[in-house]
């Protein structure tokens, strides 16, 4: 973004939260924020559940059964997707922040993010979800 270019101020409220000038940059930012908040929420749950390993092992094992159930595995896949997108797009941000010249290629970096996301993410999702139809009822 050239110095001195005047951009409209971000809109306030719900519209301001989701709408911003369009394009890959906006989508990358919106997904990054949503996935980041989702992973943060899981981290809170995860610290508490691991605390139970010491504090109440029986309760932890019960919770583990929920995690390993079919709906739990769908949530696990969504968590993996949020984490993986956030990690890949985060590296795109770090690359542009450390080498600002590469910001000119943000669209190409964005495509690399999605190609990697599906190339590695789909086999990963298959591994996580497989026990749903393989485990005996």
């Amino acid at each position, binding site marked *: 973004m050239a110095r001195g270019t005047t*951009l409209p101020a971000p809109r306030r409220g719900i519209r301001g939260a989701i709408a911003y000038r369009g394009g890959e940059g906006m989508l990358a930012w919106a997904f990054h924020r949503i996935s980041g908040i989702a992973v*943060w929420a899981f981290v809170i749950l995860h610290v508490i559940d691991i605390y139970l390993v010491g504090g109440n092992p029986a309760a932890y094992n019960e919770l*583990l059964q929920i995690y390993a159930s079919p709906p739990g595995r769908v949530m696990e896949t969504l968590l993996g997707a949020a984490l993986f997108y956030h*990690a890949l797009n985060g590296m795109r941000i*770090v690359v542009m922040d450390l080498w600002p010249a590469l910001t000119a290629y943000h669209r190409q970096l964005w495509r690399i993010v999605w190609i990697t996301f599906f190339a590695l993410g789909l086999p990963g999702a298959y591994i996580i979800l497989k026990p749903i139809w393989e485990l005996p009822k």
Partner: protein
Amino acid sequence: MSGQPRSRQPRPASQGRELTFWLLTRYSAVALFVLALAHFSMTHFIFDPAEQTAEWITQMRWNSLALRILDWSMLIIVLTHSFLGMRTVIMDYLKGTTQGVVLALLWILAAILVVLGSNVVLTLPMQ
């Protein structure tokens, strides 16, 4: 923030706390790219969640001092990164007194999680 593209948080112009937090977010991001993705792969692809019971964690995973140090480091780095991120989110949407109150609650929550997580990783006896 107005007048700045929002595809990411722009590097703060001046030295000080904001720049420190901005850099800390990026350094921890690089560490977590390796640590968190390796952790997720190990706990979801190499092992299945169903087999990692409380007994498995205490007898296998946390029977190694190295793995405990690794897990504790990951705890501190992920809490640093995620709570600095939430600080940015809160400061984007809330202003004034509300912002101050919510940020105070955020730091209290972070401190509780540091204590809970450290307690179990560092003090649970080795089997």
